[in-house]
Protein backbone atom coordinates (compact mmCIF):
# COMPACT_ATOMS: atom_id res chain seq x y z
CA UNK A 1 0.00 0.00 0.00
CA UNK A 2 1.69 3.25 -1.05
CA UNK A 3 1.68 6.38 1.07
CA UNK A 4 1.25 8.88 -1.72
CA UNK A 5 -2.10 10.65 -1.70
CA UNK A 6 -4.40 9.30 -4.37
CA UNK A 7 -5.40 11.68 -7.11
CA UNK A 8 -9.15 11.37 -6.82
CA UNK A 9 -9.99 12.50 -10.32
CA UNK A 10 -13.36 11.72 -11.89
CA UNK A 11 -12.07 8.80 -13.97
CA UNK A 12 -10.95 7.03 -10.83
CA UNK A 13 -14.06 7.97 -8.91
CA UNK A 14 -16.45 6.70 -11.59
CA UNK A 15 -14.65 3.38 -11.56
CA UNK A 16 -14.94 3.37 -7.78
CA UNK A 17 -18.69 4.09 -7.90
CA UNK A 18 -19.21 1.40 -10.56
CA UNK A 19 -17.09 -1.09 -8.61
CA UNK A 20 -14.71 -1.49 -11.49
CA UNK A 21 -11.56 -1.20 -9.41
CA UNK A 22 -9.69 -4.13 -7.89
CA UNK A 23 -10.39 -4.57 -4.18
CA UNK A 24 -7.15 -2.98 -2.97
CA UNK A 25 -7.83 0.14 -4.99
CA UNK A 26 -11.44 0.26 -3.89
CA UNK A 27 -10.27 0.29 -0.30
CA UNK A 28 -7.66 2.95 -1.02
CA UNK A 29 -10.20 5.24 -2.63
CA UNK A 30 -12.64 4.71 0.18
CA UNK A 31 -10.00 5.64 2.72
CA UNK A 32 -8.95 8.73 0.77
CA UNK A 33 -12.55 9.90 0.43
CA UNK A 34 -12.80 10.29 4.17
CA UNK A 35 -10.56 13.35 3.96
CA UNK A 36 -11.82 14.84 0.71
CA UNK A 37 -15.19 16.54 0.73
CA UNK A 38 -15.00 17.69 -2.88
CA UNK A 39 -14.35 14.15 -4.06
CA UNK A 40 -17.22 12.88 -1.94
CA UNK A 41 -19.47 15.37 -3.68
CA UNK A 42 -18.24 14.11 -7.04
CA UNK A 43 -19.05 10.56 -5.94
CA UNK A 44 -22.53 11.70 -5.02
CA UNK A 45 -23.02 13.22 -8.48
CA UNK A 46 -21.75 10.09 -10.15
CA UNK A 47 -24.15 7.91 -8.17
CA UNK A 48 -27.06 10.23 -8.85
CA UNK A 49 -26.60 10.23 -12.59
CA UNK A 50 -26.11 6.46 -12.71
CA UNK A 51 -29.37 5.92 -10.87
CA UNK A 52 -31.17 8.44 -13.07
CA UNK A 53 -29.91 6.94 -16.31
CA UNK A 54 -30.50 3.31 -15.41
CA UNK A 55 -34.24 3.27 -16.08
CA UNK A 56 -34.60 6.25 -18.37
CA UNK A 57 -35.22 4.14 -21.46
CA UNK A 58 -37.20 1.27 -19.95
CA UNK A 59 -40.09 2.14 -22.25
CA UNK A 60 -38.21 0.40 -25.02
CA UNK A 61 -38.30 -2.92 -23.20
CA UNK A 62 -42.04 -3.37 -23.45
CA UNK A 63 -44.10 -4.57 -26.35
CA UNK A 64 -41.68 -5.13 -29.14
CA UNK A 65 -43.20 -4.21 -32.46
CA UNK A 66 -43.88 -7.10 -34.79
CA UNK A 67 -41.50 -5.80 -37.41
CA UNK A 68 -38.57 -6.34 -35.08
CA UNK A 69 -39.66 -9.87 -34.25
CA UNK A 70 -39.98 -10.59 -37.93
CA UNK A 71 -36.65 -8.98 -38.75
CA UNK A 72 -34.97 -11.14 -36.14
CA UNK A 73 -36.46 -14.25 -37.68
CA UNK A 74 -39.07 -14.99 -35.04
CA UNK A 75 -41.88 -15.28 -37.55
CA UNK A 76 -45.41 -15.94 -36.34
CA UNK A 77 -45.77 -17.07 -32.76
CA UNK A 78 -47.08 -20.63 -32.58
CA UNK A 79 -50.66 -21.16 -31.50
CA UNK A 80 -51.18 -21.17 -27.77
CA UNK A 81 -52.29 -24.72 -27.39
CA UNK A 82 -49.30 -26.94 -27.81
CA UNK A 83 -51.25 -30.07 -27.45
CA UNK A 84 -52.57 -32.37 -30.13
CA UNK A 85 -55.98 -31.89 -28.72
CA UNK A 86 -59.00 -33.81 -29.87
CA UNK A 87 -61.89 -31.47 -30.26
CA UNK A 88 -64.30 -34.14 -29.03
CA UNK A 89 -63.08 -33.42 -25.55
CA UNK A 90 -65.67 -31.41 -23.74
CA UNK A 91 -64.66 -27.77 -23.48
CA UNK A 92 -65.57 -25.98 -20.28
CA UNK A 93 -69.23 -25.38 -19.73
CA UNK A 94 -70.32 -22.07 -21.09
CA UNK A 95 -70.60 -19.62 -18.24
CA UNK A 96 -68.69 -21.74 -15.78
CA UNK A 97 -65.96 -19.79 -14.03
CA UNK A 98 -62.57 -20.67 -15.35
CA UNK A 99 -61.32 -22.11 -12.13
CA UNK A 100 -63.92 -24.88 -11.95
CA UNK A 101 -62.87 -25.88 -15.32
CA UNK A 102 -63.05 -29.57 -15.73
CA UNK A 103 -65.91 -31.68 -14.53
CA UNK A 104 -64.68 -35.12 -13.59
CA UNK A 105 -66.31 -36.80 -16.54
CA UNK A 106 -64.48 -34.57 -18.94
CA UNK A 107 -61.33 -35.17 -16.98
CA UNK A 108 -61.58 -38.90 -17.36
CA UNK A 109 -62.45 -38.56 -21.00
CA UNK A 110 -59.43 -36.40 -21.45
CA UNK A 111 -57.29 -38.99 -19.78
CA UNK A 112 -58.56 -41.81 -21.85
CA UNK A 113 -58.25 -39.96 -25.14
CA UNK A 114 -55.61 -37.42 -24.56
CA UNK A 115 -52.92 -38.94 -22.39
CA UNK A 116 -51.04 -40.73 -25.07
CA UNK A 117 -51.09 -37.70 -27.33
CA UNK A 118 -50.48 -35.19 -24.60
CA UNK A 119 -47.60 -32.88 -24.21
CA UNK A 120 -44.96 -34.23 -21.92
CA UNK A 121 -43.06 -32.22 -19.42
CA UNK A 122 -40.22 -34.24 -18.13
CA UNK A 123 -37.42 -33.27 -15.82
CA UNK A 124 -34.31 -34.58 -17.44
CA UNK A 125 -30.64 -33.85 -17.15
CA UNK A 126 -29.92 -33.71 -20.85
CA UNK A 127 -32.30 -31.72 -22.94
CA UNK A 128 -32.94 -31.29 -26.61
CA UNK A 129 -31.99 -28.17 -28.48
CA UNK A 130 -35.26 -26.50 -27.54
CA UNK A 131 -35.55 -23.59 -25.15
CA UNK A 132 -35.79 -25.91 -22.20
CA UNK A 133 -32.39 -27.35 -22.88
CA UNK A 134 -29.97 -26.83 -20.04
CA UNK A 135 -32.80 -26.30 -17.58
CA UNK A 136 -33.57 -29.97 -17.29
CA UNK A 137 -36.89 -29.89 -19.14
CA UNK A 138 -37.29 -31.82 -22.32
CA UNK A 139 -40.73 -31.71 -23.91
CA UNK A 140 -41.54 -34.94 -25.64
CA UNK A 141 -43.60 -33.25 -28.30
CA UNK A 142 -42.25 -30.47 -30.46
CA UNK A 143 -40.38 -28.14 -28.13
CA UNK A 144 -41.93 -24.69 -27.85
CA UNK A 145 -40.27 -22.30 -30.20
CA UNK A 146 -41.30 -19.16 -28.42
CA UNK A 147 -40.04 -17.80 -25.11
CA UNK A 148 -43.49 -17.50 -23.54
CA UNK A 149 -44.28 -21.17 -23.96
CA UNK A 150 -40.89 -22.11 -22.64
CA UNK A 151 -41.49 -19.88 -19.64
CA UNK A 152 -44.88 -21.54 -19.15
CA UNK A 153 -43.26 -24.96 -18.96
CA UNK A 154 -40.56 -23.79 -16.61
CA UNK A 155 -43.14 -22.26 -14.31
CA UNK A 156 -45.56 -25.14 -14.42
CA UNK A 157 -43.40 -28.17 -13.91
CA UNK A 158 -42.09 -27.57 -10.40
CA UNK A 159 -45.43 -26.16 -9.31
CA UNK A 160 -47.30 -29.31 -10.23
CA UNK A 161 -45.45 -31.13 -7.48
CA UNK A 162 -45.00 -28.43 -4.90
CA UNK A 163 -47.59 -25.74 -5.44
CA UNK A 164 -50.60 -25.22 -3.24
CA UNK A 165 -54.18 -25.29 -4.49
CA UNK A 166 -55.17 -21.87 -5.68
CA UNK A 167 -51.61 -20.68 -5.95
CA UNK A 168 -50.99 -18.33 -8.84
CA UNK A 169 -47.76 -18.16 -10.81
CA UNK A 170 -46.79 -15.50 -13.25
CA UNK A 171 -44.38 -15.96 -16.12
CA UNK A 172 -43.29 -13.85 -19.04
CA UNK A 173 -41.72 -14.12 -22.43
CA UNK A 174 -38.92 -11.99 -23.73
CA UNK A 175 -41.03 -9.43 -25.51
CA UNK A 176 -43.50 -8.39 -22.85
CA UNK A 177 -45.93 -11.28 -23.32
CA UNK A 178 -47.30 -12.50 -20.02
CA UNK A 179 -48.94 -15.56 -18.64
CA UNK A 180 -50.51 -16.69 -15.44
CA UNK A 181 -51.11 -20.15 -14.11
CA UNK A 182 -53.54 -20.89 -11.37
CA UNK A 183 -53.05 -24.28 -9.76
CA UNK A 184 -56.05 -26.40 -9.06
CA UNK A 185 -56.76 -29.52 -7.13
CA UNK A 186 -54.88 -32.73 -7.24
CA UNK A 187 -56.81 -35.93 -7.71
CA UNK A 188 -56.36 -39.52 -8.74
CA UNK A 189 -58.36 -41.12 -11.42
CA UNK A 190 -59.87 -44.53 -11.45
CA UNK A 191 -56.71 -45.80 -13.09
CA UNK A 192 -54.81 -44.47 -10.11
CA UNK A 193 -53.24 -41.84 -12.23
CA UNK A 194 -52.26 -38.70 -10.37
CA UNK A 195 -53.50 -35.53 -11.95
CA UNK A 196 -53.71 -31.89 -11.27
CA UNK A 197 -55.92 -29.27 -12.80
CA UNK A 198 -54.79 -25.76 -13.55
CA UNK A 199 -55.83 -22.80 -15.60
CA UNK A 200 -53.70 -20.66 -17.79
CA UNK A 201 -54.28 -17.20 -19.13
CA UNK A 202 -51.92 -15.49 -21.51
CA UNK A 203 -51.57 -12.18 -23.20
CA UNK A 204 -49.69 -11.96 -26.47
CA UNK A 205 -49.61 -8.74 -28.44
CA UNK A 206 -52.43 -7.45 -26.30
CA UNK A 207 -54.66 -10.43 -27.14
CA UNK A 208 -55.77 -12.37 -24.07
CA UNK A 209 -56.63 -16.01 -24.10
CA UNK A 210 -57.54 -18.61 -21.53
CA UNK A 211 -57.23 -22.31 -21.32
CA UNK A 212 -57.98 -25.01 -18.85
CA UNK A 213 -55.22 -27.40 -18.16
CA UNK A 214 -54.79 -30.86 -16.91
CA UNK A 215 -51.54 -32.52 -16.04
CA UNK A 216 -51.30 -36.20 -15.29
CA UNK A 217 -48.35 -38.30 -14.34
CA UNK A 218 -47.26 -41.02 -16.65
CA UNK A 219 -45.85 -44.32 -15.44
CA UNK A 220 -42.29 -42.98 -15.48
CA UNK A 221 -43.21 -39.99 -13.34
CA UNK A 222 -43.23 -37.46 -16.13
CA UNK A 223 -46.13 -35.09 -16.46
CA UNK A 224 -48.36 -35.09 -19.49
CA UNK A 225 -49.97 -31.72 -19.95
CA UNK A 226 -53.13 -31.02 -21.83
CA UNK A 227 -54.59 -27.64 -22.60
CA UNK A 228 -58.23 -27.11 -23.38
CA UNK A 229 -58.80 -23.68 -24.89
CA UNK A 230 -61.71 -21.88 -23.29
CA UNK A 231 -64.94 -21.63 -25.21
CA UNK A 232 -64.77 -18.82 -27.67
CA UNK A 233 -61.00 -18.47 -27.57
Amino acid at each position, binding site marked *: MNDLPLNLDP*ELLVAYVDKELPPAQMAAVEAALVHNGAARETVRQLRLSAAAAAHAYDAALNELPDR*LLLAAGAGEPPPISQVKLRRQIEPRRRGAPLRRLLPLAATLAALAIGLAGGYELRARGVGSAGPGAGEGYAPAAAPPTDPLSAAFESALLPALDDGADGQALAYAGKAGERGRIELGRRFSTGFNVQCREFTRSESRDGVASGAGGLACRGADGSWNVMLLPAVGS
Partner: protein
Amino acid sequence: MTDAVFERELVAALPRLRRFAFGLAGSLDEADDLVQAACERALARREQYEPGTRLVSWMYRIVQTIWIDRARRHRPISVDPATLAEYPGGDAIGEAESRLALAEVRRAIAVLSPEQRTVLLLVSVEGLAYREAAEILGLPMGTIMSRLARARLALAKALQEPETHRDLSRDDPSGKGPSDKGAQVIKLR
Protein backbone atom coordinates in the same frame (compact mmCIF):
# COMPACT_ATOMS: atom_id res chain seq x y z
CA MET B 1 -24.46 -22.47 -33.42
CA THR B 2 -27.51 -23.48 -35.39
CA ASP B 3 -29.62 -20.94 -37.24
CA ALA B 4 -32.50 -21.56 -34.85
CA VAL B 5 -30.38 -20.84 -31.79
CA PHE B 6 -28.89 -17.77 -33.45
CA GLU B 7 -32.34 -16.41 -34.23
CA ARG B 8 -33.64 -17.22 -30.78
CA GLU B 9 -30.78 -15.34 -29.16
CA LEU B 10 -31.31 -12.48 -31.55
CA VAL B 11 -34.95 -12.26 -30.51
CA ALA B 12 -33.94 -12.45 -26.86
CA ALA B 13 -31.57 -9.54 -27.39
CA LEU B 14 -34.20 -7.32 -29.00
CA PRO B 15 -35.42 -5.48 -25.87
CA ARG B 16 -31.90 -4.48 -24.89
CA LEU B 17 -30.97 -3.47 -28.41
CA ARG B 18 -34.12 -1.41 -28.65
CA ARG B 19 -33.36 0.30 -25.36
CA PHE B 20 -29.82 1.11 -26.50
CA ALA B 21 -31.08 2.38 -29.85
CA PHE B 22 -33.69 4.53 -28.10
CA GLY B 23 -30.91 6.16 -26.12
CA LEU B 24 -28.81 6.78 -29.22
CA ALA B 25 -31.55 7.97 -31.52
CA GLY B 26 -33.91 9.72 -29.08
CA SER B 27 -37.19 8.24 -30.29
CA LEU B 28 -38.68 4.78 -30.32
CA ASP B 29 -39.53 4.99 -34.01
CA GLU B 30 -35.98 5.74 -34.97
CA ALA B 31 -34.82 3.10 -32.52
CA ASP B 32 -36.96 0.49 -34.27
CA ASP B 33 -35.52 1.53 -37.63
CA LEU B 34 -32.03 1.09 -36.26
CA VAL B 35 -32.72 -2.26 -34.66
CA GLN B 36 -34.48 -3.59 -37.72
CA ALA B 37 -31.55 -2.58 -39.90
CA ALA B 38 -29.18 -4.14 -37.38
CA CYS B 39 -31.06 -7.44 -37.46
CA GLU B 40 -31.02 -7.48 -41.23
CA ARG B 41 -27.30 -6.81 -41.26
CA ALA B 42 -26.67 -9.43 -38.59
CA LEU B 43 -28.53 -12.10 -40.53
CA ALA B 44 -26.78 -11.11 -43.74
CA ARG B 45 -23.35 -11.20 -42.08
CA ARG B 46 -24.02 -14.17 -39.88
CA GLU B 47 -20.68 -15.76 -40.66
CA GLN B 48 -18.87 -12.81 -39.11
CA TYR B 49 -20.26 -13.59 -35.70
CA GLU B 50 -17.70 -15.42 -33.56
CA PRO B 51 -19.30 -18.31 -31.71
CA GLY B 52 -18.44 -18.27 -28.02
CA THR B 53 -18.69 -14.50 -27.86
CA ARG B 54 -21.84 -12.79 -26.69
CA LEU B 55 -24.24 -12.24 -29.54
CA VAL B 56 -25.76 -9.20 -27.85
CA SER B 57 -22.35 -7.51 -27.70
CA TRP B 58 -21.91 -8.04 -31.42
CA MET B 59 -25.38 -6.59 -31.96
CA TYR B 60 -24.72 -3.51 -29.81
CA ARG B 61 -21.79 -2.78 -32.05
CA ILE B 62 -23.86 -3.19 -35.21
CA VAL B 63 -26.57 -0.88 -33.88
CA GLN B 64 -24.01 1.74 -32.98
CA THR B 65 -22.24 1.49 -36.33
CA ILE B 66 -25.46 1.88 -38.28
CA TRP B 67 -26.44 4.86 -36.16
CA ILE B 68 -23.13 6.57 -36.78
CA ASP B 69 -23.32 5.84 -40.51
CA ARG B 70 -26.82 7.22 -40.80
CA ALA B 71 -26.09 10.32 -38.82
CA ARG B 72 -23.03 11.05 -40.89
CA ARG B 73 -24.88 10.57 -44.12
CA HIS B 74 -28.19 12.25 -43.40
CA ARG B 75 -27.90 14.94 -40.82
CA PRO B 76 -25.82 16.12 -37.91
CA ILE B 77 -26.30 14.00 -34.83
CA SER B 78 -29.06 15.67 -32.93
CA VAL B 79 -32.07 14.53 -31.08
CA ASP B 80 -35.46 16.09 -30.90
CA PRO B 81 -36.51 15.73 -27.27
CA ALA B 82 -40.09 16.54 -28.23
CA THR B 83 -40.40 13.13 -29.85
CA LEU B 84 -39.32 11.20 -26.79
CA ALA B 85 -41.92 8.54 -26.06
CA GLU B 86 -43.80 8.18 -22.85
CA TYR B 87 -44.85 4.92 -21.33
CA PRO B 88 -47.61 3.55 -19.09
CA GLY B 89 -46.89 3.32 -15.41
CA GLY B 90 -48.58 2.75 -12.09
CA ASP B 91 -50.54 5.32 -10.13
CA ALA B 92 -51.52 8.49 -11.90
CA ILE B 93 -49.63 11.07 -9.86
CA GLY B 94 -46.56 8.97 -9.33
CA GLU B 95 -46.69 8.03 -12.98
CA ALA B 96 -46.85 11.63 -14.13
CA GLU B 97 -43.98 12.60 -11.87
CA SER B 98 -41.76 9.75 -12.91
CA ARG B 99 -42.66 10.27 -16.55
CA LEU B 100 -41.59 13.87 -16.31
CA ALA B 101 -38.49 13.00 -14.39
CA LEU B 102 -37.38 10.31 -16.82
CA ALA B 103 -38.16 12.50 -19.81
CA GLU B 104 -35.96 15.10 -18.17
CA VAL B 105 -33.18 12.55 -17.87
CA ARG B 106 -33.55 11.56 -21.52
CA ARG B 107 -33.38 15.18 -22.60
CA ALA B 108 -30.23 15.70 -20.60
CA ILE B 109 -28.62 12.60 -22.10
CA ALA B 110 -29.70 13.65 -25.58
CA VAL B 111 -27.61 16.79 -25.43
CA LEU B 112 -24.42 14.97 -24.53
CA SER B 113 -21.87 14.47 -27.25
CA PRO B 114 -22.44 11.24 -29.23
CA GLU B 115 -19.24 9.78 -27.81
CA GLN B 116 -20.23 10.46 -24.20
CA ARG B 117 -23.79 9.36 -24.79
CA THR B 118 -22.77 6.05 -26.31
CA VAL B 119 -20.51 5.14 -23.40
CA LEU B 120 -23.09 6.25 -20.85
CA LEU B 121 -25.76 4.12 -22.53
CA LEU B 122 -23.64 1.00 -22.72
CA VAL B 123 -22.36 1.19 -19.15
CA SER B 124 -25.04 2.93 -17.11
CA VAL B 125 -28.14 1.87 -19.03
CA GLU B 126 -27.22 -1.44 -20.61
CA GLY B 127 -25.18 -2.36 -17.54
CA LEU B 128 -22.08 -3.54 -19.35
CA ALA B 129 -18.72 -3.74 -17.68
CA TYR B 130 -16.13 -1.19 -18.76
CA ARG B 131 -14.19 -3.94 -20.50
CA GLU B 132 -17.22 -5.03 -22.51
CA ALA B 133 -17.99 -1.47 -23.57
CA ALA B 134 -14.35 -0.99 -24.53
CA GLU B 135 -14.45 -4.09 -26.73
CA ILE B 136 -17.70 -3.17 -28.39
CA LEU B 137 -16.53 0.33 -29.22
CA GLY B 138 -12.95 -0.59 -29.95
CA LEU B 139 -11.64 1.95 -27.46
CA PRO B 140 -9.07 1.77 -24.68
CA MET B 141 -10.36 1.46 -21.12
CA GLY B 142 -9.01 4.88 -20.21
CA THR B 143 -11.11 6.50 -22.92
CA ILE B 144 -14.18 4.68 -21.69
CA MET B 145 -13.59 5.88 -18.16
CA SER B 146 -12.97 9.49 -19.07
CA ARG B 147 -15.96 9.74 -21.42
CA LEU B 148 -18.15 8.03 -18.86
CA ALA B 149 -17.04 10.30 -16.04
CA ARG B 150 -17.65 13.40 -18.14
CA ALA B 151 -21.06 12.12 -19.23
CA ARG B 152 -22.13 11.29 -15.71
CA LEU B 153 -21.00 14.62 -14.29
CA ALA B 154 -22.67 16.55 -17.11
CA LEU B 155 -25.86 14.60 -16.56
CA ALA B 156 -25.80 15.18 -12.82
CA LYS B 157 -25.24 18.87 -13.36
CA ALA B 158 -28.09 19.10 -15.87
CA LEU B 159 -30.46 17.34 -13.53
CA GLN B 160 -29.71 19.62 -10.65
CA GLU B 161 -29.94 22.85 -12.58
CA PRO B 162 -32.98 22.33 -14.78
CA GLU B 163 -33.57 26.01 -15.64
CA THR B 164 -30.22 26.55 -17.24
CA HIS B 165 -30.37 23.40 -19.36
CA ARG B 166 -33.94 23.19 -20.45
CA ASP B 167 -34.81 24.70 -23.81
CA LEU B 168 -37.94 26.67 -23.00
CA SER B 169 -38.98 26.91 -26.63
CA ARG B 170 -39.60 23.18 -26.76
CA ASP B 171 -42.92 21.79 -25.65
CA ASP B 172 -43.20 21.55 -21.92
CA PRO B 173 -45.41 18.64 -20.91
CA SER B 174 -46.22 20.07 -17.50
CA GLY B 175 -47.50 23.27 -19.08
CA LYS B 176 -46.17 25.21 -16.16
CA GLY B 177 -42.83 26.44 -17.36
CA PRO B 178 -39.69 26.05 -15.29
CA SER B 179 -40.28 25.07 -11.72
CA ASP B 180 -37.93 25.19 -8.82
CA LYS B 181 -37.25 21.53 -8.43
CA GLY B 182 -33.94 21.89 -6.71
CA ALA B 183 -32.32 18.56 -6.07
CA GLN B 184 -35.60 16.65 -6.03
CA VAL B 185 -35.99 16.22 -9.77
CA ILE B 186 -35.51 12.48 -9.83
CA LYS B 187 -37.76 9.96 -8.20
CA LEU B 188 -35.46 7.01 -7.98
CA ARG B 189 -36.81 3.48 -7.79
